[in-house]
């Protein structure tokens, strides 16, 4: 995936600073969109930056006559090169929103384009598909909806054999899917799910990546949990998706990223997760996690977090299913290598992508909450100290670290004995100095468990000015009762 994409990267004329600035802007725009639940909006897919003159030619806006002329030349020209050239010129023009509007307002234009798309002239077909792809990018829903007459053909071509063409059709479909519910309302009865289920058997990596993209867009739709996900779960798509995620020599990172995100959208919609567990999702994802941890150690390659993130999410959410117990799913994930792998990934996130630490810790919580075995692993593999090293990162991370520690401590004296003496108490005294109520609250819970199961810790706590640390919070409404209770325990103990 990465090498292919890099091959296609246009040479950039911007400096590094400029790139960073633009990336920050894009990130801010995406964050805002996510909060407004508009993240699937296609306008965010196309970078709004002005066109870099990479190819050395600037596309001009085409007027009505020119569009008509190109269409006529493409349809009726005598020389094939001439016809192809006309479509190339049209495509360049269609990069401009004004040309797109002109095009859709012209009577019969889409009809002609669809005719060229379905003609027997292969190269005309390809250029017509590229024009359609340009149109599908439009931020205006009128333009994208004008592409609706082509969708039945795009779907038909998915069962063809020309991989570049199929790839283009898939990206076009993906863009159209994102656009509006009207488009999806047409694509579903037109059989997009069976078409994708047939196409997913293609051996071409580029096709699979494009398919994963289109599918992920379909799954992100607002109406997906009710209208789309059930038919996807009823098809053979889930089995194929899991196959693409199996570690081994055939695993392609770009393809795996797409299908991992698809799985995430399905799983977090909670439509029928036991079905996925039945297909072996837990086992596959667990093995993939191990594989990722191995890869992270070997290579400096950026981008592995793109795959790690959805895998962590899928595992975490799946572990909350009751079916995990009954189907023996928990057995599939009793392997303590999962914990080792997770910590290797946490270290990787700590260095490269700290914003993903909460997601890793979420999985750790779900692994340890009801599992004495995993709690024991954390102790026997000496992972408490590394865990504590994450405390200063952020308040969210602190709360989650403390929660995991509570998961261990609440299992009783045998566990608390291994938590103390050690770095835990000093760390707790440190977190008690935080101002965040949630962090302090969780610290108090942990202290309570520690005092209960390991009473010797109380003395050390007092010696290290624990009471003063507690006093800071005795006025805080959410903390008072617990602070008081702990003060009593400490003084009596």
């Amino acid at each position, binding site marked *: 995936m990465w090498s292919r*994409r890099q091959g*296609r990267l*246009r040479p950039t004329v911007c400096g590094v600073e400029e790139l960073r600035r633009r*990336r920050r802007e894009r990130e801010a725009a995406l964050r805002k969109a996510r909060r407004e639940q508009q*993240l699937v909006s296609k306008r*965010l897919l196309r*970078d709004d930056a002005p066109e870099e003159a990479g190819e050395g030619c600037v596309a001009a806006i085409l007027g009505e006559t020119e569009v008509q002329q190109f269409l006529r030349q493409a349809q009726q020209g005598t020389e094939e090169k001439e016809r192809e050239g006309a479509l190339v010129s049209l495509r360049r023009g269609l990069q401009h929103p004004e040309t797109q509007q002109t095009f859709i307002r012209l009577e019969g234009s889409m*009809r002609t384009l*669809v*005719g*060229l798309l*379905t003609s*027997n002239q*292969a*190269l005309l077909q390809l250029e017509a598909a590229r024009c359609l792809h340009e149109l599908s*990018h439009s931020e205006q829903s009128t333009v994208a909806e004008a592409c609706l007459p082509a969708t*039945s053909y795009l779907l038909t071509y998915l*069962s*063809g*054999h*020309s991989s570049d063409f199929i790839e283009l059709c898939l990206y076009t479909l993906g863009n159209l899917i994102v656009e509006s519910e009207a488009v999806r309302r*047409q694509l579903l009865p037109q*059989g997009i*799910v069976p*078409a994708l289920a047939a196409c997913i058997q293609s051996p071409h990596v580029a096709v699979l990546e*494009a398919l994963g993209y289109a599918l992920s867009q379909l799954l992100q739709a607002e109406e997906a*949990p009710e209208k789309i996900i059930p038919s996807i779960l009823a*098809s053979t798509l889930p089995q194929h998706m899991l196959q693409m995620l199996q570690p081994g020599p055939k695993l392609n990172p770009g393809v795996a990223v797409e299908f991992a995100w698809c799985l995430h*959208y399905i799983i977090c919609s909670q439509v029928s997760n036991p079905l996925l567990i039945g297909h072996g999702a837990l086992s596959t994802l667990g093995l993939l996690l*191990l594989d990722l*941890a191995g890869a992270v150690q070997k290579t400096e390659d950026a*981008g592995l977090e793109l795959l790690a993130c959805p895998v962590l*999410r899928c595992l975490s*959410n799946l572990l*909350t299913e009751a079916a995990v117990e009954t189907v023996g799913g928990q057995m599939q994930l009793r392997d*303590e*290598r999962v914990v*080792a792998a997770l910590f*290797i990934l*946490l*270290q990787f996130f700590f260095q490269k992508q700290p*914003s*993903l630490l909460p997601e890793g810790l*979420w999985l750790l919580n*779900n692994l340890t909450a*009801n*599992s004495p075995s995993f709690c024991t*692993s954390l102790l026997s593999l000496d*992972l408490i100290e*590394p865990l504590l090293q994450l405390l200063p990162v952020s308040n969210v991370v602190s709360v989650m670290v403390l929660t995991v520690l*509570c998961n261990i401590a*609440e*299992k009783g004296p*045998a566990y608390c004995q291994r938590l103390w003496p050690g770095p835990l108490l000093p760390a707790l005294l440190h977190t008690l100095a935080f101002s965040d109520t949630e962090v302090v609250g*969780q610290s*108090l*819970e942990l202290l*309570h*468990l520690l005092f209960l199961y390991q009473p010797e810790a109380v003395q050390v706590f007092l010696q290290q000015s624990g009471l003063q640390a507690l006093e800071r919070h005795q006025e805080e409404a959410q903390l008072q009762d*617990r602070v008081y209770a702990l003060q009593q325990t400490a003084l009596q103990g």
Partner: protein
Amino acid sequence: MQLPPALCARLAAGPGAAEPLPVERDPAAGAAPFHFVARPVRFPREHQFFEDGDVQRHLYLQDVIMQVADVPEKPRVPAFACQVAGCCQVFDALDDYEHHYHTLHGNVCSFCKRAFPSGHLLDAHILEWHDSLFQILSERQDMYQCLVEGCTEKFKTSRDRKDHMVRMHLYPADFRFDKPKKSRSPASAEAPGDSGERSEGEAMEICSEPVAASPAPAEYPLPSALVRVPLEDLKATRRKPNNADRLRKGVGGSHHCWAWHPPWAFLRPSGVAALGARPSPSSPSLSLSKWHQQLSSEAVRDPQILETTWTHYWEGDVDGLSPPAGPTLRMYF
């Protein structure tokens, strides 16, 4: 964040689960004011927890989409021609050739040389256009399969199937890969905008155009069950008894191509209705059309008529005018 050195070794070693330490909970643990309970946490789709990861995902997608829109520079090679017999296209890029091959030579009907975008559509075409057994069976049961991948509905006629595809699957009414068999127009690539053709869904129809020298064999591919000769020989075979000429002589220079209708046209009630109900301008004598009607009503009862009717023509027993009496027909089988 420092990891213990033994951790990587643990990862590389085999699977295994730690023997859990004994669990022993004290009820005081969960006593008020403390409320911690160990529990797995679930986050739904839109939860804010996912914000950071989602933003990273979309930043990545933006880069991908930008790059997909780029048309890659095609590596050029010395010009070469397509090797398929009869194709004279020349290429200077392998990707172009690959696409050409798949489009034009990939799923091609060996009977009529039409190209289809997928094996699925090709199979449906061969079945419906070139298989006599299909024609026979379709009289008795619904045989026209919906063309949408994954839909298992079947229909009595291609018209019904088209209606289903339009209504249920929101397909366009002029979907290019569901054209009904045409009687006269040349077998060229479907030109854009040719939806102005006549009836859809009817297998064969009367055409009132002048008969050309002889219809291109591609238009009347004989059912394989009937004539087991290669397509090339079919041309010769067809020309020998020139029934068209005979008919023309018999009915005073009419331009009909009835003689050239594959006999199964008569088996189809709707097709026959077309014959009977829509006589062409220079229609023959009434007796001929009546004979056709009679023939069809006999034919519907027994599919054997298929072979017999054709034989009937070949032996030149038809003088083109007077219909044989009903019982005579039965002599043939």
